[in-house]
């Protein structure tokens, strides 16, 4: 192993991370530990209710752990004084249900996160245009979400997740609401963007065939990580 990489601070690090609901009656995460390096594409998989979506929400500072810590470049995410700044600058979310704002057009939805950046009105528009072009929606700029197909909505959401050029993409079952043809196209798009732009991506899925596309697979069960398979170990496993 490269010694400089070993000493480098990982992008994400979970230390005995726990999240309980209903006063401890539901234990979604039970002392999870892992590190993720910059540029990795990690799939988190497991049966429904295993805690994978809860983990993703903690990574994105949408929720707070009950115990343990979660570090971003060595800084504790739950203790950040301005979690919204972290979300705006470092995180791009892609949700299963797209989560677009219904009263804004495709072009406007992509610009929404940019209000938290220092860009001018013209720069915001230009950036949104470029991103929608990147996801192949240059002909749907002024369509409201209700006038777009599921695949198109997810493309808008992907463009929006890249609005502030985040270092970390968090995707929660991004193809879960799509038919197989669209699912395939969207997954290819996400992976292409992740690889071309060298961003770190954590993708939650219950579908093993989607998880297989990742460089590393964390398998979860009952709130714990039961296996951590990297590309190298997958290779070793095959041979």
């Amino acid at each position, binding site marked *: 192993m490269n010694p400089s990489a070993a000493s480098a601070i990982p992008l994400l690090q979970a230390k005995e991370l726990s999240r309980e609901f209903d006063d401890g009656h539901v234990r979604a995460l039970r002392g999870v530990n892992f590190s993720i390096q910059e540029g990795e594409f990690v799939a988190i998989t497991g049966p429904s209710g295993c805690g994978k979506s809860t983990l993703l*929400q903690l990574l*994105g500072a*949408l*929720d707070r752990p009950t115990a343990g810590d979660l570090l971003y470049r060595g800084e504790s995410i739950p203790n950040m004084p*301005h979690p*919204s*700044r972290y*979300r*705006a*600058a470092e*995180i791009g*979310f892609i*949700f299963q249900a797209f*989560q*677009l*704002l*219904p*009263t*804004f057009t495709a*072009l*406007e939805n992509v*610009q*929404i*996160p940019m*209000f*938290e950046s220092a860009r001018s*009105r013209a720069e*915001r*528009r230009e950036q949104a245009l470029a991103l929608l072009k990147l996801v192949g929606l240059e002909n749907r700029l002024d369509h409201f979400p209700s006038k777009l197909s599921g695949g198109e909505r997810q493309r808008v959401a992907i463009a*929006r997740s890249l*609005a*502030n050029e985040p270092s970390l993409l968090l995707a929660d079952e991004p193809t879960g609401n799509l038919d197989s043809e669209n699912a395939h196209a969207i997954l290819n798009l996400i992976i292409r963007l992740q690889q071309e732009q060298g961003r770190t991506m954590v993708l939650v899925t219950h579908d093993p065939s989607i998880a297989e596309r990742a460089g590393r697979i964390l398998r979860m069960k009952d709130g714990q990580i039961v296996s951590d398979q990297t590309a190298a170990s997958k290779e070793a496993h095959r041979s």
Partner: protein
Amino acid sequence: MTFFTVVLRGLLRRPLRTGLTLVGISIGIAAVVALVGIASGYEKSINKQLDAIGVDIVVSNVSGGFMPKVFDESLEARIAKLPGVAKTTSVLMEMQSIEDAPMMMVSGREWGGFAWEKLSLMEGRMPGDGAERAVVLGRMAAEVLKKKVGDKVQIEADELPVVGIVDGRSVVENGAIMLSLKVLQDVTDNQGKANFVDVRVPPNSTKEDVSRLCQRIKEIFPEGRALVAGEVVSNSQGFRIARAMSWSTSLLAIIVGVLGVMNTMLMTVFERTHEIGILLAVGWTRRRIIYMILCESALLGLLGGLVGISLGALGVQILEHTTGIRGLLEPSLSPKLLLTAVAIAVVVGVVSGLYPAWRGSRLTPSLALQAG
């Protein structure tokens, strides 16, 4: 797209509800404009009337209802002897319901006094002397009562002929019934009484001269007061009550407006919980959420204020031309009043948005995303 687009889009999501809320605030603001405008218009009209007659100091009793209590008319002679007085005249003024008109000013003026000087005859003639049992009508009063020269006007139990119609150069004068002091004393059973002494000072008097004279009048008439013409109305009990009532009625209307906006903004926050979750997830700060909701409610207030002052001005116009009231009102919708009304509306908007904005900003993003 600007932040304003986001704010506007928020209001336009439910156009009907936004519209109804707007109507709610506008009614409150319209009430402010109309009631306060009428009250201050009244103040202005009285001042104009005093100016038209050429009165510098008004002497009257302190106590009384809408009109001060009567005193013995010999007071005038005592005031006339004071240094710095040019002319004096006694007046007996009553507010009465005359025939179909609800409230009309009946002004008994000392025959030969300066209160008669500035009236210019439009039709008919002036009374022949102080003893003639006849009245002249201000031109608006003639219109409201639908009287011509030769008709009769009933005051108390007496029917007095209209001998002339005059222009008195102010709404109050034109809306009044004028007759000789003696005759009105007779008719109202107030022999030897008046309730005002109007005082004129020499043209070269200074402000200090006038206030010194007021002081001297108070010395010989301790139970009464002597006010410089411009201060008469603001010191009148009746007017103070009218002003207080117009503001408190307006306040009530404003409170209703506040509750309306607050309700709308709370509904908005509840309905948009999921969207606020999305905004938080894409990195919006809580401060920006608060700002967005406050801007929406402030904009609602501003629009309500603009619609409200238009409604108020329109309402006052209609009132001004309503038979029975016409001629009595001379509302004053000063730019200051209109600006104040709009400012109140914006403050109403912001205040009503505070709690909803706070609620919206306290949402937990993960939970908000799961909502509806």
